[in-house]
């Protein structure tokens, strides 16, 4: 108990802050912050596995998040039959072509000595393959995108419950991580950072512009939910009586029947959205707790000790007979897969997939701020970082507004500087993030909850 005091204190403060938001702003806001905190926590856990356990720097978090989101679309949207019949054949042909291309290249890599001829022939194969694929796919893609472009214009998905996408998202992200890892993991740390950042941009570019698969910037809206819909709840008897029971004290004060009914209706509308958010919180909490248990177990297992050894001294670990390359690849895939889960969760919560919203600032660098601020190498620290930084990210605007009003209290309301500052309130969050990161890195480089190694 004693040694975990700082963890408990930090989490209590965090919870109190969220509850304060609930009391002073509204429970709706508090819960949506809480849900996003949970999703961020999953992302930071993924990044923490890579950075904290193994010292691998992955600036491609955005790409894996987007792939998780894509999984949510592909799993949950109903298939568009017309599109399949119009262009499905061409697309499937392309898929086979890609598989064949990959197999041929693998075959060449395996069976021929490394030489210039081999490199050039592989390059020629890839180029001609791409041209071939383009020619096969073009008519199919055009046919698919022509079908009802305002509503569908894409292949759709499998029409399964969206929850499955959390697992599929993990596989998608893991698959990408396998390719990226094979390509880039040999690089030095800062090269790896740049390479992963750029690869994630390529992934986003593909998701944005391959309309036949993702609808691109036209967005996919109205995804199925694992939670009930507010409108349905508002007309369900048990929910109304539940709200009535909860607020019986408040309602009993109102004697007039019609006033009471109006008040109850209001409460039911508010309660329904809170209830839906609570359902999400429950689902997300389950994911976070399962992941936390696994990551904690892994951290203290022989495997975790090996990862730390590899992180702290690669050569020594190598000399001890540990396969550094393989372990790096494994942990890269695992971490990315967790980020993929978070991406699918995010789309599930929002109910829409907007490829245009994936920006490195929000989905890569912010997550890194979370990991560094929270404490890399410590799962509780990483989760706390996710909570604290997301909380600050959302509440930065109100805080900045308060500070601006405080410091410019002497100025008149129409003063140009004051108006300008109040207009630019949303950007103070960047300032706070940056300053927070710089201060933590300077004065507490191991984060709020530093890594501690217990030898059990």
């Amino acid at each position, binding site marked *: 108990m004693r040694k975990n005091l700082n963890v408990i204190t930090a989490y209590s403060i965090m919870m109190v802050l969220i509850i304060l938001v609930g009391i002073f702003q509204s429970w709706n806001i508090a819960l949506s912050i809480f849900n996003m905190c949970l999703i961020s926590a999953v992302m930071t856990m993924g990044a923490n596995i890579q950075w904290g356990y193994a010292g691998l720097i992955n600036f491609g978090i955005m790409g894996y998040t987007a792939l998780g989101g894509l999984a949510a679309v592909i799993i949950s949207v109903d298939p568009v039959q017309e599109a399949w019949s119009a262009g499905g054949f061409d697309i499937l042909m392309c898929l086979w072509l890609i598989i064949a291309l990959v197999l041929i290249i693998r075959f060449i890599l395996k069976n021929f000595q490394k030489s210039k001829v081999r490199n050039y022939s592989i390059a020629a194969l890839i180029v001609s393959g791409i041209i071939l694929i383009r020619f096969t796919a073009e008519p199919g893609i055009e046919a698919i995108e022509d079908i009802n472009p305002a509503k569908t214009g894409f292949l759709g998905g499998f029409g399964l419950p969206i929850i499955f996408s959390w697992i599929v998202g993990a596989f998608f992200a893991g698959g990408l991580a396998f390719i990226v890892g094979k390509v880039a993991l040999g690089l030095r740390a*800062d090269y790896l950072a740049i390479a992963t950042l750029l690869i994630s*941009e*390529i992934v986003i570019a593909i998701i944005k512009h391959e309309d036949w698969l993702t609808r691109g910037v036209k967005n996919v809206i109205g995804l199925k939910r694992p939670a009930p819909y507010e409108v349905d709840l508002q007309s369900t008897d048990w929910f109304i009586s539940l709200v009535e029971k909860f607020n019986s004290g408040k309602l009993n004060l109102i004697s007039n029947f019609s006033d009471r009914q109006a008040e109850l209706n209001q409460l039911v509308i508010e309660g329904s959205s809170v209830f839906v958010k609570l359902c999400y919180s429950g689902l997300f909490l389950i994911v976070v707790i399962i992941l936390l248990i696994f990551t904690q177990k892994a951290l203290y297992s022989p495997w975790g000790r090996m990862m730390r050894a590899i992180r702290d001294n690669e050569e020594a670990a190598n000399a001890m007979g540990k396969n550094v390359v393989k372990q790096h690849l494994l942990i890269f895939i695992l971490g990315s897969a967790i980020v993929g889960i978070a991406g699918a969760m995010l789309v599930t919560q929002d109910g829409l997939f907007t490829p245009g919203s994936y920006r490195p600032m929000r989905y890569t660098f912010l997550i*890194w701020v979370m990991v560094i601020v929270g404490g890399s190498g410590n799962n509780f620290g990483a989760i706390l970082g996710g909570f604290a930084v997301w909380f600050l990210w959302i509440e930065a605007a109100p805080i900045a507004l308060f500070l601006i009003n405080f410091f410019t209290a002497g100025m008149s309301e129409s003063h140009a500087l004051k108006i300008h500052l109040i207009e630019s309130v949303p950007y103070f969050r960047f300032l706070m993030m940056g300053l927070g990161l710089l201060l933590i890195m*300077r004065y507490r480089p191991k984060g709020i909850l530093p890594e501690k190694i217990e030898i059990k």
Partner: protein
Amino acid sequence: MDILNALILLLNYIFIPALTYGSQLALGAIFVTLIYGILRFANFATGDMMSFGTMVTILFTWYFQSLGISLGVLPTALIAIPFGILFMIIYMLSIDKFVFKYYRVNKSPPVQLAMVSIGVMFVTQAMVRIIIGPSDQRFFDGEKFIIKAREFKEMTGLNEGLALKSTQVITVLVTIVLVSLLFWFLNKTKTGKSMKAYSDNEDLALLSGIDPKKIVITTWIIAGILATIGGALYGLDKSFKPFTYFNNMLPIFAAAIVGGIGNPFGAFLGGYVIAFSEIFLTYAYKKFFMYILPESMEPESLVQLLSTDYKFAVSFSILVIVLLYRPSGIFKGKVL
């Protein structure tokens, strides 16, 4: 005649834009590569530092415009650039003093410095957005075109017009002057040579009496000049938007790495490699083939290798390929 038309077409839509864009990238890439070679970290605040310098330039341009000062046919921004550079250098030196110095003195690993530069990126981005706002700003004035497409057509009687914007000429000229000055400085002067020595082997350089403080300050000053001019030229040619500048960081990184990071000349060429390949691969050659091929063989599709949406993806793919086959860059930089 048709061949001439086709050539003008390529010149107008590929060569000139790529040369301009390449020059802007090259300046940024030299900035990245200098910081990497001498201060030894990947500076993720590159794009935002460039936008900071550009912002100061824009503010001064507006100030001069309000005073009624102008350069006639040339954009007013050219007189504002020195002030932008001044502020940029002050900003960079103070950031170095308050942020980077601590880690340099403690000999922190490069990754940690890169992380710190992300903090700087956030702060700089916030400052730019708070001061000038996130929206598009145009600050170009003066004569827009040197040759207008229609005038060119009338002059030569060709079907294809050639438009030459004054910003394009200014960009290329300024880049040539600046880069030759820089290489003269690095290769011929004593400070430049000691910078190179410091970049090659820090300990040996210190032993031979090179003052590291002076090196660091000189590096930031050069970086400030490059960042501001590169950013301002980009802003003059296209338009200024903080988010675009942040995004430009990626092709700039690609250019620096393709050229061999730590090698300024490589970075300079890398900028053009990236720019030309981006535009070559995403240009629709239909019209070009219509000119050079007989009518019966005219292509029906756009004859575009990749859609323009993948412009950025091209440079990143080049980078990945280079990293795979030649991690030290095309022009052998530091062996990493």
